[in-house]
């Protein structure tokens, strides 16, 4: 046990947490931006998978990291928009459309993989990877340096994306409109905002975030594509963003919390504990965290009239 604690409070552990969190932060931001526009997006699982695949294939054929990145992001935007088309134009339920997208992504990538490799060993497809990056001054700081420096460049992009998300959401007219549409679509419509278009933009931006997450998975985290390699991260992202209230920093924290649990699981599995049990830890953790989260949200209605976000307390004000 003490060896476990030692290894958990090690520099390597926290380095791993950042690495494991990266493919959660991206899709969580995607979930958050669609949630802000009033939609639940569970399609990031599929979008990540498609982008992961597209990136690997394009990098192999063109041998250009840049083109692989662009193609992956384009696939994310395309499928984000496709989700929008089905939901907004054809009026399909967004959950159903997203489930369909996830199945499509899974089937399509497997099919294309077989077509391309001719059924041969898929690990023959060695992808290019995004480079790792040492931060010059930071790396020499003890403890913090080894944790924060030397990550894949996409990890830094993930953290940067949190900031970008914040700026887009709270510092641009588009962000304002997304929030207005999510809070009261009729209000937005009544001032001439095209509600469907705003929702579509939110879905397309979420496609970008999802794609970056997928690209990191196949071209940084590992360097190949394997079937269903996203493995539920698109769903955990929903939990992470929801816990974070869809706010930038909250979503980051939510993602890192799940990153932490997942990393701990990897460490614990080195102990002599049945592996089935160990593998259930992330799921258990999700359930526990969500339970705590919703208990907080549905706390007794008769609260002291002192909570700002309590719907009951809406009309309080005496005459000016």
């Amino acid at each position, binding site marked *: 046990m003490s060896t476990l604690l030692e290894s958990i409070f090690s520099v390597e552990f926290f380095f791993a947490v950042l690495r494991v969190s990266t493919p959660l932060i991206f899709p969580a931001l995607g979930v958050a931006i669609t949630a802000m526009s009033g939609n639940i997006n569970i399609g990031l699982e599929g979008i990540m998978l498609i982008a992961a695949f597209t990136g690997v294939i394009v990098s192999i054929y063109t041998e250009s990291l840049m083109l692989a990145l662009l193609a992956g992001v384009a696939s994310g935007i395309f499928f984000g928009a496709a989700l929008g088309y089905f939901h907004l134009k054809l009026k399909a339920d967004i959950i159903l459309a997203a489930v369909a997208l996830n199945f499509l992504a899974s089937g399509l990538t497997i099919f294309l993989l077989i077509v391309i490799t001719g059924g041969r060993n898929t690990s023959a497809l060695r992808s290019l990877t995004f480079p790792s990056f040492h931060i010059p001054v930071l790396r020499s700081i003890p403890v913090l340096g080894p944790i924060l420096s030397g990550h894949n460049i996409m990890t830094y992009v993930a953290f940067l994306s949190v900031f970008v998300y914040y*700026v887009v959401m709270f*510092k*641009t*007219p588009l*962000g*304002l*409109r997304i*929030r*207005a549409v999510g*809070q*009261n679509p*009729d*209000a*937005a*419509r*009544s*001032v*001439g*905002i*095209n509600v469907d278009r705003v929702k579509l933009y939110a879905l397309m931006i979420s496609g970008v975030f999802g794609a970056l997450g997928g690209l990191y998975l196949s071209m940084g985290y590992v360097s190949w594509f394997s079937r269903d390699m996203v493995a539920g991260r698109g769903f955990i992202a929903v939990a992470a963003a929801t816990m974070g209230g869809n706010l930038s920093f909250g979503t980051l924290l939510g993602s890192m919390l799940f990153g932490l649990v997942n990393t701990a699981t990897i460490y614990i599995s080195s102990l002599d504990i049945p592996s089935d049990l160990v593998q259930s830890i992330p799921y258990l953790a999700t359930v526990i965290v969500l339970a705590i989260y919703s208990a907080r949200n549905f706390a007794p*209605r*008769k*609260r*002291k*009239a*002192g*909570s*700002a976000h309590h*719907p*009951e*307390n*809406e*009309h*309080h*004000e*005496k*005459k*000016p």
Partner: protein
Amino acid sequence: METILSIQNLWKIYPNGTVANQDVSVDIKEGTIHAIVGENGAGKTTLMKVVFGITQAKSGNISLRGTPFAPSQPSEAIDAGIGMVHQHLMLAPELTVAENIVLGVEPKRGGVFFDFDTAVQTAQETSEKYQLAVPVDKLISELPIGTRQRVEILKALYRNAELLILDEPTAVLTPQETEILFQTLDQLKEQGKTIVFISHKLKEVKRIADTVTIMRAAKVIDTKPASELSIEGIAELMVGHKIDLSRVAAPEHIGPAKLSVRNLNMTRDDGVEAVRKVSFEVAGGEILGVAGVEGNGQTELVRALVGLLPVDSGEILVGSTDIARLSPKEIRQLGVSHIPEDRMEDGVAPLMSIQENIIVDRYEKPDFSTWFRIFWKNVLAHTVGLIRDYRIHAGSPKHEISSLSGGNIQKCVVARELSADPDVVVASQPTRGVDIGSWEHLHSLIVEARNRGRAVFLVSADLDEVLKLSTRIIVMFEGEIVARFEDASTVTAQDLGPYMLGIKRQEESSATVSA
């Protein structure tokens, strides 16, 4: 005067078959205030929604300054210089006032970024220019409904609307706020703006309008200069019969107290006292009216009575049960019903049907369900009965409740709450937005509950209503009861005024006077 907006032979039929406008023709002259009055469901809101591009007519012509105009969405109407303040407010609750005002035409910095500071500044300037005071940097959800209303008007003015449509703007305003609004409207008229004003308050129509159009059952009955009409005349044209505005007779028998409040204190979020040392009793068979400018603690008090807000100290007894720790449902089970002041927020689930909204408080009764199924036939029959008894203008009980006109949604809420046959009725603005005919009708239902020995606690911003119905009256100012009138039959609005404005207060607030 030029005709700015001309509507000719307009028909509007909703997809569910409701004919909301039938061959409607109206001309609106530039630089005038044009009132549209009519019963709930007469089609006033629908007509304006067509003009504003929210919904489209089946046939007919609209022309704006002589050119044909058929907006397919609000942005076209806004671009053409039309602004609309909706009956049910259209604001994003978790955005600030300034953000709501500039939404859609946001000021930018560097061509890309939303310029929040400029937004706040221009919102402030607009607010000052039109003398509509709003706290520009607060969230909408923190504001009382009257202030939200002003935000809506500012939204339209900020976009330089030349033709301003106000759909029942005063329904949620206090008399003082209404007067300020009217001064603003007069001022806007002088600046050459045209205003379409929809209201059920005929006094206001008389006060502000140049021209009045009267609608009934989807048709225009008449359009006349306001100077040729009296209040009684408008009312008669609207509902087809004379309206009785006299006070109701005092109850014959008053029973024991059913609702007792003792020394109640409440604090708001920001730490200010909302309710201070409030004590009163309501007995079976009487109506206790609360007069007061809105925002003087009535909202908090009502919410405490029905279990929606906690109290700091004091007692609320229903019969002899202290309800402090009970849930709203348990309080209902004690026989308390609640007509909330904001029907869309606390009164109905807007996307559910009329019948579902009617049975939310009673679906557990054996008539309506067992543990695994709902008897929809009985629910339907029950709802049909209420629609008839409460004269709700509705197509089918299965229609979404938000497809009803505003006043009819209000009637559904009142129908549910009164038909529960409660012991104690807590009614907050029970007739907000209902037409003068239904106003009278709902009053007779409230009086009927009283006569059956129920205790009625009535809060209303409509002084006529308080004076007409109350057996006794208390006046609230800044969270306190500043006057009590044990016999309401001789009280006049003039008597109440000084107390409502805090100019006067009775020495001992527990002392009583007979005016």
